[in-house]
């Protein structure tokens, strides 16, 4: 069996192209997330005050470190496009996989829409600063989505190399701003007096409530798994890229909190549209403002780009297994991308970007992500139980099992409660959506799925079955 090579299978089979290295995995993971530092995280400060913002930053950081560790272990063993979707299919079962696939597509498509909305908003702000009021944002929103869809369509290597460059610029911009402020480039000094004067405007409940948007600092780092089928050496590159990604983000998140809280009054920060850009405005330096404007635009584009990449992989995988019509499971003969899925998701993203308010879209995205993390907890326990460490070889084994799983479950429950504070209706609307979709899949859609073919990994029969 080991003699079969991919070359022998090539003439009659189309595969996704395997060209990516660990740096691309890092760029995909950090690229989707880094925009969270440029916008969105600061609503956590609004929900609980400055201290709550910092606590949420680190608690969410802990949650995502657990996510990264768990994900790295499972995905280094299940190297398939669709990431967590393929994990769920092998470890929990088909209906769970269908749900996880939906979580992924929803979380990423909504995030993509949120990014496009932000591009429009930022250009409107800049147009306003140059004296042009009432810019039409729609053409820029449409262009951002169309351009990135086109880039994704044309091939994964160019897409993620582009991401690598713009993410590096956006991350550097954060570091430059930090050092510039430390070396006194700011007209206005850092001031943390609100930390002592008004430590917790909402009391301890504020810290819990802040966790809702604290997730935004890191949401999407788990998207690295989607690239599994296109990475040259998945068992090595995926854990490496994911772990490097979460470390980068922990640094960026802490720096961002420090600079923004020091330079912007918390009442303003709690509702700002583009906090890092505002911090640069406070410094009074035109150079820093230009740099952070570029950083913000690049971060949003990188995120939308990664989201198109990930959502289309998840949709494609579901089509390949006939969870969705098999038409979607097609690979482009020249560019080797899941081209039908990419094109299909364009109008969906446009519906959300042009029709829904930003905080709704963001909450929908966060909730889908959160359901996905909750799934990871029991997924991990079942994975170790069905295939103990001595039965199959893993690319990476995470330490301290089951401690990360337990921490993750506790933090997920807290985060559900945090979302419930203020956004309870959406939470329940979304649960209804997933319950109806599950019943639809189980009783209608599943009849078109081949049973045995879904289990594609060369693993032994799971223990206990």
């Amino acid at each position, binding site marked *: 069996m080991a003699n079969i090579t991919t070359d022998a299978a090539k003439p009659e089979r189309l595969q996704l192209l395997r060209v990516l290295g660990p740096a691309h995995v890092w760029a995909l993971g950090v690229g989707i997330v880094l925009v969270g530092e440029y916008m969105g995280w600061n609503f956590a400060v609004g*929900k609980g005050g400055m201290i709550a913002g910092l606590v949420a930053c680190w608690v969410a950081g802990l949650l995502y470190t657990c996510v990264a560790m768990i994900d790295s272990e499972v995905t280094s063993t299940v190297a398939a496009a669709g990431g967590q979707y393929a994990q769920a299919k092998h470890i*929990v*079962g*088909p*209906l*769970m*996989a269908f*749900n996880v696939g939906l979580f992924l597509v*929803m979380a990423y498509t909504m995030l993509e829409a949120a990014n496009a909305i932000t591009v429009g908003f930022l250009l409107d702000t800049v147009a306003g600063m140059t004296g042009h009021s009432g810019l039409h944002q729609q053409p820029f929103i449409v262009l951002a989505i169309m351009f990135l869809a086109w880039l994704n369509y044309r091939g994964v290597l160019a897409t993620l190399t582009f991401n690598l460059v713009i993410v590096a610029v956006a991350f550097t911009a954060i570091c430059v701003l930090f050092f510039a402020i430390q070396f006194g480039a700011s007209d*206005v*000094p850092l*001031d943390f007096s*609100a930390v002592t004067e*008004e430590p917790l405007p*909402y009391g301890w*409940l504020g810290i819990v409530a802040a966790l809702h948007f604290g997730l935004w600092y890191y949401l999407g780092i788990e998207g690295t798994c989607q690239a599994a089928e296109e990475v040259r050496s998945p068992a090595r590159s995926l854990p490496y890229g994911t772990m490097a990604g979460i470390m980068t983000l922990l640094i960026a998140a802490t720096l961002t909190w420090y600079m923004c809280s020091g330079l*912007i*009054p918390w*009442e*303003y920060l709690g*509702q700002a549209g583009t906090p890092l850009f505002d911090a640069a*405005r*406070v410094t009074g330096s035109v150079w820093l403002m230009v740099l952070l404007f570029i950083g913000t635009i690049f971060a949003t584009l990188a995120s939308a780009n990664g989201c198109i990449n990930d959502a289309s992989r998840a949709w494609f995988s579901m089509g390949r297994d006939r969870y*969705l*019509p098999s038409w979607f499971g097609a690979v482009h003969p020249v560019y080797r991308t899941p081209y039908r899925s990419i094109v299909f998701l364009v109008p*969906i993203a446009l*519906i*959300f970007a042009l029709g*829904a*308010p930003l905080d*709704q*879209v963001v909450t*929908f995205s966060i909730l889908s992500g959160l359901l996905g993390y*909750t799934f990871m907890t*029991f997924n991990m326990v079942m994975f170790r139980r069905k295939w103990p460490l001595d039965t199959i070889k893993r690319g990476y084994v995470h330490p301290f099992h089951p401690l990360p799983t337990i921490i993750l479950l506790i933090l997920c429950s807290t985060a559900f409660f945090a979302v*419930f*504070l*203020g*956004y309870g*209706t959406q939470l*329940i*609307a979304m*649960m*209804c959506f997933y*319950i109806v979709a*599950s019943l*639809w899949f*189980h009783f209608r*859609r599943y*009849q*078109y*799925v081949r*049973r*045995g073919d*879904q*289990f594609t990994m060369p693993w032994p*029969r*799971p*223990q206990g*079955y």
Partner: protein
Amino acid sequence: MAYEPKKQGLAAQIFDVVTLLVLTVGALYVPLYMGLAGAAKTPNPIENPTWEALGQNAAEQRQWEALGITDPASVNDMITARFDYSFSWAALIIMIVSVVGYFVLVVRLSDREYREVLDERFGSKRKGG
């Protein structure tokens, strides 16, 4: 012996995708149209707002200025707005039941389907592994 899935025609495939889309768009827009969405902050503006009365010290005043805001009255609402975190226990219980119930439902139905998959892949066998 293996389960042979039905063939699905083009119209039925399109129908399935449309169903899923309607569900998605519905979940996003129905709460919006019913006016149930979003957490609102309520401003509690104070009389005769000055920077001092609004609790802004000298350094913070310079920050507001750098953001282009020199008149404290214009940010009276922004500074005094607070969220309302009171909630009903009934709503909390509905949330817990729906989240937990959802996961239980999905995992149980999945497990039934999963056993079928394994039987087809590894051959039918009753117990062990």
